[in-house]
């Protein structure tokens, strides 16, 4: 179904998405939104993998599997991150990174 | 092993109680002709209202437009929440004797609690409970009624 | 316990109590000062053990305000009516018995709400049915021309 769309288009999309994620990660102060920025970054990487796989090496499925594994890792990462965030919230009443400056609680 | 046995037994017992409940509802579902619903506006002709049902206070008039109310006001006193107001007038009969008579027997249907105390207290049986219940109105003032009909007179022979 | 024995027992506890057998129950009027101690004794005395507080009523007796406590013993099955008066109509205070019978907390709140009797040592004395700025409707001198339509 890709028709005449060149590979570069996919890469441009993923680049934009990647750097939006970076920007979010740098400017956000809230742990959850930072987590969401990371998800954006991971997702853009996935697009790259899949696009390379489909356009350059369709004879095997390496990119596809890499994406699968990245998704699985992302899920694990989100689960642990959110557990930590909830715990931080319980102790600090805030999920703002600036306010979570002491490691002892 | 025992634990597994209990686990399975628990599940099966639970399912059995659920099925018992479902049997009850199913019994009624599959006998829909046994429904107990009365279709009110359609069944107005056959609707059974008990003889003693207290739907409203009425004052029966006979064919000569006469009633039994003397205007004594006992019902007004006995009414716990003032649903009845008696307005009397003084009649002068042929012999020149002054006699108290009912002018307006005002009945606030919207306030009445149908406690039957006025009927019980009425010495002449002038008021009784009617069974009509379709009183809903759009305007609350319509619920204030005058029970004695215009131009009605007291029946002969009714003593106070 | 028979009525006579009950009267004797109560007079033993509180000499100043005016105890007599009423038409139905034994009734006793206790002076305000020793009221709480009296209630505590009749609850804890094993021969009396009035552990069930049926009902608490406030009555406006024109010159005094009166609290009436209906008590029953679930073990001995006898009943007692305890009355206590307070002559002060502006700031009437009666000791609370909520520490003895938790249920009285709410009956007392009701009496506070409707009659304006406050209870000392009450854990949570607030208006119950009515707003804070409402009068005390069950007092005989209560007037409310706005809300009440008199007959």
């Amino acid at each position: 179904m890709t028709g005449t769309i060149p590979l570069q288009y996919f890469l441009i999309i993923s680049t934009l998405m990647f750097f939006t994620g970076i920007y979010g990660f740098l400017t956000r102060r809230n742990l959850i939104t930072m987590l969401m920025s990371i998800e954006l970054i991971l997702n853009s990487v996935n697009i790259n993998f899949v696009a390379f796989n489909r356009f350059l090496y369709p004879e095997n499925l390496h990119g596809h599997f890499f994406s699968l594994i990245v998704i699985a890792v992302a899920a694990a990462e989100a689960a642990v991150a959110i557990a930590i965030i909830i715990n931080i919230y319980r102790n600090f009443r805030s999920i703002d990174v600036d306010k979570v400056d002491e490691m002892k609680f | 092993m025992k634990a597994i046995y209990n686990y399975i037994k628990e599940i099966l017992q639970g399912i059995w109680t659920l099925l018992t409940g479902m049997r009850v509802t199913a019994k009624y579902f599959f006998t829909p002709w046994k429904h107990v619903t009365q279709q009110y506006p359609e069944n107005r002709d056959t609707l059974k209202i008990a003889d003693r049902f207290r739907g409203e206070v009425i004052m029966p008039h006979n064919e000569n437009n006469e009633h039994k109310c003397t205007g004594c006001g006992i019902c007004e006193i006995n009414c716990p929440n003032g649903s009845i107001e008696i307005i009397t007038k003084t009649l002068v009969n042929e012999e020149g004797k002054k006699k108290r008579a009912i002018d307006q027997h005002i009945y606030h249907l919207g306030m009445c609690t149908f406690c039957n105390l006025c009927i019980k207290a009425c010495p002449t049986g002038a008021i009784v409970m009617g069974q009509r219940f379709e009183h809903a109105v759009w305007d609350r003032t319509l619920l204030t009624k005058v029970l004695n009909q215009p131009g009605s007179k007291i029946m002969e022979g009714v003593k106070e | 316990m028979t009525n006579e024995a009950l009267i004797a027992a109560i007079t033993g506890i509180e000499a100043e109590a005016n105890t007599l057998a009423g038409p139905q129950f034994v009734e006793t009027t206790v002076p305000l000062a020793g009221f709480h101690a009296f209630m505590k004794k009749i609850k804890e005395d094993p021969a009396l053990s009035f552990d069930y507080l049926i009902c608490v009523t406030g009555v406006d007796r024109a010159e005094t305000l009166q609290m009436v406590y209906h008590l029953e013993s679930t073990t001995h099955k006898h009943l007692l009516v305890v009355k206590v008066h307070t002559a002060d109509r502006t700031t009437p205070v009666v000791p609370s018995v909520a520490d003895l019978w938790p249920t009285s907390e709410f009956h007392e709140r009701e009496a506070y709400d409707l009659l304006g009797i406050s209870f000392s040592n009450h854990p949570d004395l607030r208006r119950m049915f009515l707003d804070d700025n409402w009068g005390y409707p069950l007092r005989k001198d209560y007037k409310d021309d706005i809300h009440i339509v008199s007959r």
Partner: protein
Amino acid sequence: MNSEILFFMLSGMIVIFSILTVTSRRILRAAVYLLFVLVSTAGLYFMLNYNFLAAVQLTVYAGGIIVLIIFSILLTSHISERAEMAGRFQGLMSALATVAGAALTLITILKYSFPEKSVTEMPSDVKNIGRALVSYNENGYALPFEVVSILLLAAMIGAIIVARKENMAAKGNKK
């Protein structure tokens, strides 16, 4: 022609919503924008004929991670809260860095000539994916698969332990 329209729709959504994700000050809205980004990405995968991957993307990302994130937002923030952003200087610097990085990458991508597509194509149907996932020969992924399963298990246990409440007091007055 059709696929181009679809592609531009999806990529437009991706770009717009990812920018909204990182700029929205309402956290839950940001999460919803992220959901849109992820669903659009799944759309791209469908376009590329990787149906299985797209479905995984929907299940895990949209149905799993976003639900998790929304849950944690529900637990930790109130509707009237607005997320705090970085200061103006830091924001400006971040934006500059991002734009510079993006420009550099884009130039590289556009300049680089990618090799030609190979002719043979491996259909990405469920059968092939399943075979590859559990085989241990050349194109097999048994090892990564197992590693990821262990990772997931570890993450699950870790998450449970981290999030567990210390005091389980006040649990029924009389039991």
